[in-house]
């Protein structure tokens, strides 16, 4: 082994320990941000010890929100338990999102690999993409009724093209050099796809999926805007009509937690699978 190579290995080790230190520092900073946010919230709402700077009707204190949450747990909301509302929303979200991933990723890969498929399907997908999907909501209600189908479709409407295009772009940006290398090592089409193109695409696909999560959560609110009487976003929306800001906030926090934990979950899966991310 040459001297330069041994040095490089030492550097790699150092990079490992500094990286761990940096991660710990990042975690600490993130925690501080959340704590600061929470303290400001407590500060402006008074926490019962001083007069609130913002009236509870606009911003209830964290304690009030917590109590509203406990009350909802106990009594439910408008005839259904809180868990029912969370469950039905999660069902709509999860059904729409997982179908988009299960169908969108393979379709995107196909579009990236196959010129003919691209010529047939890419223009319509690109044409649909800029249409504001919310404008289609009345149409979906007419077509698919007021049941869960129309809600699932309205969530899928923006998410599906996003995932398809992310997967397609990921295929298109696989380095030709790597494909050439595989070919001159004797690989046929299937080996090139399964052992080179597919793994090389994974970072791009994961980025697309994570971007789609926040859009899907937003569309969940849109889906429960009208023609429904359950769901966590519906709970927030109707509570707002009665100025029950505490219940609105319970719904907001639940949706935020849903989006955030899904993002973390997918990030964790990504880190586990795509260990080479950032190294092309």
């Amino acid at each position, binding site marked *: *082994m*040459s*001297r*330069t*190579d041994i*040095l*490089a*290995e030492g550097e*790699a080790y150092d990079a490992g320990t500094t990286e761990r230190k940096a991660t710990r520092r990042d975690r600490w900073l993130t925690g501080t941000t959340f704590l600061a946010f929470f303290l400001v919230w407590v500060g402006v709402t008074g926490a019962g010890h001083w007069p609130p700077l913002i009236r509870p009707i606009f911003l209830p204190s964290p304690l009030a929100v917590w109590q509203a949450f406990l009350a909802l747990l106990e009594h439910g909301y408008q005839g259904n338990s809180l868990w029912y509302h969370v469950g039905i929303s999660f069902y709509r979200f999860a059904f729409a999102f997982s179908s988009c991933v299960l169908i969108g990723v393979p379709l995107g890969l196909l579009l990236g690999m196959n010129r003919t498929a691209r010529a047939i399907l890419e223009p319509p997908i690109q044409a649909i993409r800029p249409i504001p999907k919310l404008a289609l909501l009345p149409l979906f209600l007419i077509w698919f009724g007021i049941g869960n189908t129309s809600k699932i479709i309205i969530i899928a409407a923006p998410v599906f093209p996003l995932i398809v295009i992310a997967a397609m772009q990921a295929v298109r940006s696989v*380095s030709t*050099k*790597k494909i*050439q*290398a*595989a*070919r*001159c*090592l*004797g*690989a*046929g089409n299937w*080996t090139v796809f399964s*052992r*080179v193109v597919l*793994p*090389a695409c*994974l970072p791009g696909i994961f980025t697309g999926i994570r971007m789609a999560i926040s859009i899907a959560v937003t569309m969940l609110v849109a889906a429960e805007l009208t023609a429904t009487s359950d769901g966590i976003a519906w709970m927030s929306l109707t509570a707002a009509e009665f100025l029950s800001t505490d219940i609105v906030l319970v719904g907001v926090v639940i949706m935020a937690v849903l989006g955030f934990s899904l993002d973390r979950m997918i990030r964790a899966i990504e880190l586990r699978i*795509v*260990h*080479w991310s950032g*190294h*092309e």
Partner: protein
Amino acid sequence: MMIERIELATPDRRAGSKLNLEGLTKTFGAGAEAVQALAPTDIAVTEGEFLAIVGPSGCGKTTLLNIVAGFETPSGGCAVLDGRPIEGPGSERGVVFQQGALFNWMSVLENVAFGPRACGVAPDAARESAQAMLEKVGLGGFVENYPYQLSGGMQQRVGIARALVNDPAILLMDEPFAALDQQTRELLQEEVRGMWRETGKTVLWITHSIEEALFLASHIVVMTARPGRVKAAFRCRFSESPDLLVASTPEFTAAKREILGLLRSESEAAQRQESMI
């Protein structure tokens, strides 16, 4: 004489050639935008030769190698390896890239075992021969690492091991050491020199460095500015010398001067081309 001028495409050399390039041309694009990268190029390479190609930047060296590798199709002429016209990439031609062609999602061992497995060898046997090849290039202790965890020099060793493990009829290398630092490069040059003497593989080697060409090659081709063709060819004997410090002999300097003279005027022509664009 340590170097002597020769003709590369004589009927004699063609008759017993391993790789035969006849009137090879390549034009990119069409109409007013067309760029002719290769003018008719004739080169015959005999089994066991180490042919280095030097030429000014943009003269079509990579294009030539890509045609032999099967990544590009020639616009005219033909390329024949072992009597068969080249059509598309194949495992009998091992290619070593400058950098960035390793699979970062596979361990070093899997990278090297990729070739045999793609050629139908059973996974266990493929890994065994990959392990043996990695030990040969001095990476026996790094088989479990991922390529991005290695230094540039080590990555190039993996690239060479990956190309060699398929036991190709010819090795194609496009400036494989250009991205490395001086020390690592010299070390790897010595290793490649040893490997070539040991295995007697036919090698097509593209480089910008005249020293590298003189130190490693049995034959050197100097190409003209774009459109590239063979300007001069040399038989070179420095690579046969057991002396690793052969580069500091007066003969080496004289040979370098001769080739540099040929290359200088072509580089100036290439510069003029670029400033015209």
